[in-house]
């Protein structure tokens, strides 16, 4: 099964200069665990911030989320996979990089995201299809 068949197309972006608090607010409102990060000073650069980063690198260390900028904790570069790759390749990347979601790219554009649950669903459907 190809990545584009099972990716989630909706991606939430946040500016690297926004505060971590804004990221928390967005994650709570949208019920998601990660945000894609864009950099106004470099259009090509993209990163990611997860709930895990917020908890361990800001809240857990006693930092103020209002005063901490996303660029301080965001992971760059963003881990991506081309949209026509196989779902099995996503699994390899997740295992190697120890991440739970991989972004999907079409050239320079980010077009989707695949989470661990998506891989589980896709594997089951693949098994049934035979």
């Amino acid at each position, binding site marked *: 099964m190809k990545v584009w068949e099972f990716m*989630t*197309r*909706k991606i939430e972006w946040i500016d690297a200069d926004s505060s971590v608090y804004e990221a928390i607010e967005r994650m709570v409102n949208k019920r998601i665990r990660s945000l894609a990060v864009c950099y106004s000073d470099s259009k090509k650069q993209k990163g990611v911030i997860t709930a895990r980063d917020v908890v361990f690198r800001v809240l857990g260390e006693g930092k103020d989320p209002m005063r901490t900028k996303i660029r301080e904790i965001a992971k760059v570069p963003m881990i991506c996979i081309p949209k026509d790759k196989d779902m099995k390749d996503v699994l390899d990347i997740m295992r190697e990089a120890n991440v739970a979601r991989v972004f999907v790219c079409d050239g320079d554009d980010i077009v989707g995201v695949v989470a661990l649950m998506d891989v589980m*669903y896709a594997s*089951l*459907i693949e*098994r*049934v*299809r035979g």
Partner: protein
Amino acid sequence: MFKRFFYSEKNEQLVLKEMRTHLELLEQACRCFVDFLKGGDKRFLEEIVEIEREGDIVRRNILSTLYKGAFLPYLRPNIYRFVEIIDETLDLLKDKARLCEFISIPPILLDDTLQIAVLNTEMVRMLIIAFDTFVAGDDLRERVLAVRIYEKRIDDLYHDLFLRITKVSVEDFWQGRGLGDFFSLLVKLSDLVEDAGDVLSLLHLSLS
């Protein structure tokens, strides 16, 4: 046990064959709808209406064969229910096709609409795989779970889509109503297919 009920009698074989045809028609209609969304060719909508009529004939054939005494009486209600659900799904596709003749889907919603339509088609394909597994007498839990996975994905997509629908401006009341009805039908299809999967599970349980 399965072999006795499903292969020994001519009427039973006929019902199963027609049920498979009914499902194939549903898949065909779903594919027509995807093709319409991709290219905007309204001939695909007419084809859906034709397929629905054909589906009605198949449904009547199944019911008359059941009336003649195919299957044991305790199995008939769920077989009947399964057939009715597939028929309702075909009706729904026809209504959707009719709506598409006078509404235009806003370009900003087209991509998600297409994705839901593609997932609906895949979901029907999965139901056919489940049906074949059922006829073969094998365990279909995994197949029905796959059907449910598709339903959940469609539900998630619709949730996002719904938030954007409310921001689309429409020309008049009827355009707005048509659009609202269209999107309701779009997701109701997956609910029905999921129900059909559950009835199939019930039938499987009745025989084990």
